[in-house]
């Protein structure tokens, strides 16, 4: 009996401790989670149907800010972990209000997520099967690992790296970068229609693809490569204006 009480106490203390540094919110009725951040953001999967924000122990509120609330262009800190979380219809909008130090966000694997980095932050998303939209608007890079669903990713100066798990859906995949490299790993047996194009960069791949010239003329958009692999299937469009492109077999 004493042992049982001890375990109960430990659990209780654990919950209290967690509640102090983490933020959770149920995802009932939520279709999309939109995350916006100026700093690095890492999105991982967990098994419960809730949003969990781990800001980590290193985030400390300055002594002078005691009794004050953190405010930013995304709203007011209503989570005590430096985030503003607002529900809009079936969408949960998550703003990271801090401009330094990253955060880890945990969501169920099937969640549709849209992540936007508006300054220097890198976006890393790992292990999701729902739909993913990633937009690194300035200097951040995008790294998507073990994703299975439709992906729409875009970066300006950062690198765009995507490692696909199994791709079976028919919704298109679209990966564009202006100045960064586009680096994609795809299972070699993926049925897909590929469209690769780059203006000033080069395309490197070990898939069987070849350049398509219309009547010997270069296309308006520069080097365009269209190819279907494994009999054709989901449309995968990749484009880098100034960067190189790498398409690897996994």
């Amino acid at each position, binding site marked *: 009996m004493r042992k049982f009480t001890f375990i109960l106490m430990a659990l209780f203390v654990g919950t209290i401790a967690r509640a102090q540094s983490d933020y959770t919110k149920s995802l009932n009725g939520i*279709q*999309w989670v939109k995350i916006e951040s100026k700093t690095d953001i890492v999105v991982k999967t967990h098994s419960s149907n809730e949003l969990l924000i781990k800001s980590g122990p290193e985030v400390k509120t300055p002594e002078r800010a005691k009794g004050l609330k953190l405010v930013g262009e995304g709203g007011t800190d209503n989570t005590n972990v430096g985030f503003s979380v607002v529900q809009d219809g079936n969408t949960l909008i998550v703003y990271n209000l801090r401009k330094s130090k990253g955060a880890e966000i945990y969501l169920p694997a099937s969640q*549709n997520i*849209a992540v936007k980095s508006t300054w220097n932050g890198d976006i890393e998303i790992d292990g999701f099967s729902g*739909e993913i*939209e990633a*937009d690194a608007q300035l200097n951040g890079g995008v790294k998507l690992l073990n994703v299975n669903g*439709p*992906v*729409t*990713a*875009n970066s*300006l100066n950062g690198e765009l790296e995507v490692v696909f798990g199994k791709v079976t859906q*028919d*919704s*298109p*995949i*679209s*990966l*564009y*970068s*202006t*100045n960064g490299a586009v680096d994609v790993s795809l299972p070699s047996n993926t049925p897909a229609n590929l469209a690769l194009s780059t*203006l000033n960069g080069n395309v490197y791949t070990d898939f069987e693809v070849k350049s398509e010239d219309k009547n010997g003329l270069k296309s*308006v*958009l520069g080097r365009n490569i269209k190819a279907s692999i494994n009999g054709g299937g989901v*449309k995968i*469009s990749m*484009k880098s*204006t*100034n960067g190189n492109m790498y398409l690897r077999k996994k």
Partner: protein
Amino acid sequence: MEKNHVFDQIPDYLDGNLNKSAEAEFEKHLEQCADCQKELEEMKTFFNVFEEEVPTPSDRLKAKFESTLEQEKINQGKVVQLEAKPSSNWIGNILKIAASIALLVAAFQMGSLFQQRKVNEDIAQLQDETNQMKQTAMLSLMENQSASKRIQGVNYIEEFEQPDEAIIQALANRLLYDENDNVRMTAFEALVKFTSSETVKTTFINALEQEKNPSIQVAIIQALVQIQEKKAAEPMKKLLEKEDTQPFIKDQIRAVLPSIT
């Protein structure tokens, strides 16, 4: 003697098979016996009925029949000859057959022509309906919450050889107002095939003024230079003056601006 009836002799009498004495005796009895007279009368009628019912063909009849048969045979032979005669008229017959076949074929062709026309109409109608459905699907996909679905909607443009104004306008709206860079880029790639349309030209010029993504900016600049659109010069100059325009965009504009002014 009265009681000695001659009933059994009546058939022989009638057939004339009795000898003279028997016949005389029979007739003598007959005169005295009313019964026998009556019997004779009845027998006579009976035999007459027989004779009438089953007339025995006479030799003459038989001969006549055979001669008639011969005659008939001869006549029939003549008929066969008559039938054989039209063989000289076989061209006419073939023509008749040909005419009937031609009629059959013509009727069949006519039928299949009408059928075909109806089928064509049906196909045209179906195609129309399919296009309508595709257009509806395309337009509704382009309003979807998911960026990937919106891109899918934009990609539907490949299904239309000559998209109507509604589709062009919907794509133009995607290029001008979609919040997702990938959707805007895909919409541009869809529209760049229809630069002969005035709507598309105007859209590109408007998009160039408000677009922030350098990849789309440079793609629009190239498309507008390709079609030698003079009105593009103004927004390009504005981009040159802007501080946040990417250096490579400025280089690009400087390189192409002389060719369209």
